């Protein structure tokens, strides 16, 4: 057994009603790189947080080097030889590399001795693992790739034998990622054990020895990397569940209602989130955007809906241009026939502390039928809400109940009712069934198809591939901010999965 560095036995963790980890068993062999893949929300990060002491498992056991241990906090993890490189770096920006590395491991109140020791140790680590960084450089002046190297040095300085990297390449350029992989190879050669969490299949194939797949809180399979294929992993990751096929006839696409040309969106740090995306949605068709979460779909939706500023590009709504780079005015877009079901209903689509009826007018509260001059017409608002409650079967049927007290599916119905009942020309929907109970999913899917059949243009974003395939008339796949391919909904899961992982897309783009 002594070639097992770390073993998890029956780890179970729930957050309220959300069962994030279900009876997880995992063995990681010493001196290997072990990949853990899964879609967003599959429970990877929760599992690693348990391993690093941020959360306590509800039940189960962690065995390090054959000894069962309890990890109450990150300090306990560090003393057990576990180091973590977080997705979002935990560095003090205005400290030097040296200061960051020794932070929390100063050894004494007087810093001089510690600094000298740390400098020496850093030099040794640099030589041993080819991790060159100037110890006196300020973190804020270092590029992201080097900042990550400092995180690795921090873990090694604390004598970590097991290194967990959480989505390490998410913020790196391809060249930086390749360099990181070389460093990881070096670490492995020196006998360190590495756990690599990612949703990118290409990385798994390139660097790991073994790979475990998580799906919906469960560890569904462990494979030796050399004996598996990208196709098999994609299938395991997405899962072959029973398809919720909805009755859907042939669409009859009409005029172009929404046209996006060369849209580019950067976030506040200047990172390009949406990269030169062009697409068209016609009346009477559903265009689905597939992709692993975080590849720019959210930003694309927000830019089209008028919540986020675009850096360049044009958007035409009903043939008329929309100012995407200037002042954004979602209210004006609504008046022009655009409805938006946002991805995050808890923070964006609804105000959870409001009564149901108050949420039923959010965004449409300027409509004169809800107003008496400057006053709200409470009677009209409640009557309107009650009609929608009846039509969308929202339960409990109480327009005065606080929105937070509705279940996820019913909350989503509140949003859908509000956005659909206006008869918009263009409907953009993000994650229509995220966190929605199974019963409501079918209802929501039916409504979306009804909208199409009424001649609306529907743009749909979902990380659920099945949903995209079931609803869409055309599927666009986004990867790293770009649309990397268009497929018909008959394309196989494997084919789409490869596009989503950025494997096929590269080839296609090159051709």
């Amino acid at each position, binding site marked *: 057994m002594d070639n097992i560095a770390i073993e998890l036995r029956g780890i179970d963790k729930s957050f309220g009603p959300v069962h994030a980890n279900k009876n997880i068993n995992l063995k990681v062999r010493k001196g290997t790189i072990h990949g853990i893949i899964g879609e967003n929300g599959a429970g990877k990060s929760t599992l690693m947080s348990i391993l690093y002491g941020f959360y306590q498992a509800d039940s189960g056991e962690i065995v390090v080097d054959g000894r069962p241990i309890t990890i109450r906090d990150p300090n306990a993890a560090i003393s057990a030889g576990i180091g973590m490189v977080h997705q979002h770096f935990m560095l003090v920006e205005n400290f030097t590399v040296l200061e960051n590395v020794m932070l929390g491991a100063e050894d004494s109140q007087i810093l001089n001795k510690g600094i000298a020791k740390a400098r020496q140790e850093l030099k040794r680590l640099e030589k041993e693992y080819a991790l060159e960084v100037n110890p006196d450089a300020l973190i804020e002046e270092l590029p992201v790739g080097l900042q990550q190297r400092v995180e690795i040095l921090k873990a090694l300085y604390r004598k970590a034998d097991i290194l967990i990297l959480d989505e390490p390449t998410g913020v790196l350029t391809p060249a930086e990622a390749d360099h990181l992989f070389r460093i990881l190879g070096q670490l492995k050669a020196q006998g360190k054990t590495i756990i690599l969490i990612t949703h990118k299949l290409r990385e798994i194939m390139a660097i790991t020895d073994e790979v475990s797949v998580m799906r919906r809180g469960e560890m569904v399979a462990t494979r030796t990397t050399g004996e598996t294929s990208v196709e098999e992993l994609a299938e395991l990751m997405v899962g072959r569940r029973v398809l919720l096929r909805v009755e859907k006839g042939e669409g009859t696409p009409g005029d172009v209602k929404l046209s996006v040309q060369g849209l580019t969106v950067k976030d506040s740090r200047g990172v390009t989130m949406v990269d030169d995306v062009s697409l068209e949605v016609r009346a009477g068709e559903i265009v689905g955007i597939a992709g692993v979460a975080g590849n720019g779909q959210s930003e694309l939706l927000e830019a089209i*809906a*008028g*919540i986020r500023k675009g850096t360049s590009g044009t958007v035409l709504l009903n043939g008329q241009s929309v100012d995407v780079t200037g002042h954004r*005015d*979602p*209210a*004006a*877009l*609504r008046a022009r026939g655009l409805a*938006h079901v*946002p991805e*995050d209903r808890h*923070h*964006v*689509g*609804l*105000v*959870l*502390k*409001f009564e149901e009826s*108050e949420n039923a007018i*959010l*965004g449409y*509260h*300027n409509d004169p039928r809800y*107003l008496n001059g*400057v*006053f*709200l017409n*409470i009677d009209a608002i409640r009557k309107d809400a009650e009609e929608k409650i009846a039509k969308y079967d929202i339960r*409990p049927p*109480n327009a*005065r*109940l*606080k929105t937070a*007290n509705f279940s996820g599916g019913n909350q989503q119905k509140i949003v859908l009712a509000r956005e659909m009942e206006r008869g918009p020309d263009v409907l953009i929907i993000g994650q229509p069934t995220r966190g929605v109970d199974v019963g409501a999913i079918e209802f929501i899917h039916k409504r979306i198809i009804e909208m199409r059949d009424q001649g609306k243009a529907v743009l749909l974003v979902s990380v659920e591939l099945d949903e995209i395939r079931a609803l869409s008339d055309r599927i666009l796949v986004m990867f790293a901010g770009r649309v990397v391919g268009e497929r018909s909904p008959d394309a196989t899961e494997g084919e789409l999965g490869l596009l989503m992982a950025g494997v096929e897309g590269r080839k296609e783009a090159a051709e």
Partner: protein
Amino acid sequence: MSTPYAKLPGWVEYGLVPLVNLAVAFIVAGLVVLLVGENPFEAAYHLINGAFGRGEYIGFTLYYATTFIFTGLAVAVAFHCGLFNIGGEGQAYVGGIGVALACLWLDQTMPWYVVFPIAIIGSAFFGALWAFLPGWLQAKRGSHIVITTIMFNFIASSLMVYLLTRVLKPLGSMAPQTRTFAEGGQLPKLDWLLSIFGLNIGTAPFNISFLLALAAAFAVWVLIWRTKLGYEMRTMGHSPSAARYAGIRESRITVIAMMISGGLAGMMALNPIMGEQFRMQLDFVQGAGFVGIAVALMGRSHPGGIIPAAILFGVLYQGGAEIAFEMPSISRDMIVIIQGLVILFAGALENMFRPAITRAFATRGQRAAAVVQTKGA
């Protein structure tokens, strides 16, 4: 309540929980009194008697309460919009300019009922003006409202010293205050209101601005829960991201909410200036702007809670003064400690007993629900 989902019945949420907090505050305050070697029951007697014992005392209690209703409403309005307006003190102080100007201008020629409306507009205008800048800086420049409103309190203080020693002071006077207003600058007392209950107002300055405070409380309720502006403010206060999604113009609403808040704070100046002193003195606000924060917290930013909370603080002010007078070993500072304890338990620690109370009522609620179900079947 209307639904089985509601966590706590209204009377528990708005009645029992604050009462438990208040009781604990008084118990701890009693221990403090014990610690300085005095009888806490005697102190409690003087507190209650000093606040309610005579018509005159009640008049004083309600006079203080009037002031706190205004400042409490000011904090509450901003709070509904997610803004923490710490600047009520300065806004009330500057609001005094509006009152003083109206009175100095018209008091000798006009009766009070002509001067009063102009003074209301003036006080609200100057208070709003003083809140406009922090609101604008927050909306357009992202300067944090807490920092800027605190700084504006100090600026207001310096500005008023300047005005009261150089500009508004009558020639030849040594005191930093305006001249005393004539009849037109003096608000009538509400002696008739107390005499309905057979009480004699005595020398208490309980005046008509109390009724204005009640009207303001109602107006704030209408604003927050019955107007489009209030809807937009609440959306922003609960969820800025939802407000952005709904197309609500954040900067515009921020500035408007701050100006309404500042206007309410400014109207506080009517009570001491036109109702008690009949002149504007240096430092007439006396911390009422800060008490307003505690009042709003305790009253859950709801006018229906702010009025009783303001009266409670009126009791603490008036009854506290009486304790200090009757029991010399309890100094004025002790009273401040007691007030602090009330703020601590009712405001900062308001959730301390909530879990226990919720648990008690959850089990009870389940039983009640079971009964309803059997009845239904």
